[in-house]
């Protein structure tokens, strides 16, 4: 009796380090990994809301032990750097993500990028002014 000889599909090996050998792939992966900090900080904000909802005593302890801890501040500063990279890559990608037409002509991509940075700066100033 003939044994079945179905060929096994070839799976090209792909080591998890494929993005380390090329500058563009590396920067792409850094951009993708900014999501760790975007998501992590979102969970931190959720914790902040939660501690506030738990009442003044829990919030006082959270403020002194967590928010003022040099480790937590340091981690947030690291997160800030990665989130800034996310902001820069998102603003720079804006003309690709949304093409704006003025009549028959595409609006200059540099104008769209500039407008995004302007909106970012204005919103950031507003947030900081309202908070402080």
């Amino acid at each position, binding site marked *: 009796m003939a044994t079945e000889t179905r060929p096994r599909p070839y799976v090209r090996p792909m080591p998890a380090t494929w993005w380390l050998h090329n500058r563009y792939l590396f920067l792409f992966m850094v951009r993708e990994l900014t999501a760790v900090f975007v*998501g992590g900080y*979102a969970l931190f904000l959720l914790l902040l809301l939660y501690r506030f909802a738990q009442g003044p005593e829990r919030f006082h302890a959270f403020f002194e032990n967590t928010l003022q801890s040099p480790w937590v501040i340091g981690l947030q500063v690291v997160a800030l750097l990665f989130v800034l990279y996310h902001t820069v890559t998102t603003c720079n990608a804006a003309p690709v993500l949304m093409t704006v037409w003025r009549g028959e002509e595409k609006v200059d991509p540099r104008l769209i990028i500039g407008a995004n940075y302007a909106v970012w700066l204005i919103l950031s100033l507003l947030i900081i002014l309202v908070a402080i």
Partner: protein
Amino acid sequence: MARSNEPLWWVPFMAGAGISAFLMPATIFVTAIAVGLGWIDESGLRRLLSNPLVRVYLVVLISLSLFHAAHRLRFVLIDLLTARGALSLICYGTAIVGTLAAILIAVMG
């Protein structure tokens, strides 16, 4: 061809990309640097967190940032570990649960 649910996740992903890009750096500046340097004290932060508009702001930022991160990290895990299976469920599930938790806490707290 099987119908894909990809567009459904792409909308909150892009909304989250924009919202987190525009709002998150300044928010981190407030909770890390302004609090660290003492520009905002405990009572100041409590006053902010009891403001309904600030809570709406935080819920929107938390929710869309979670959906954004969920989508990106899903593809990071596929790219690095060729992960599949329950990956989508875990990623988007966290974002959905996080959103519901943020709304509940913001409304009740």
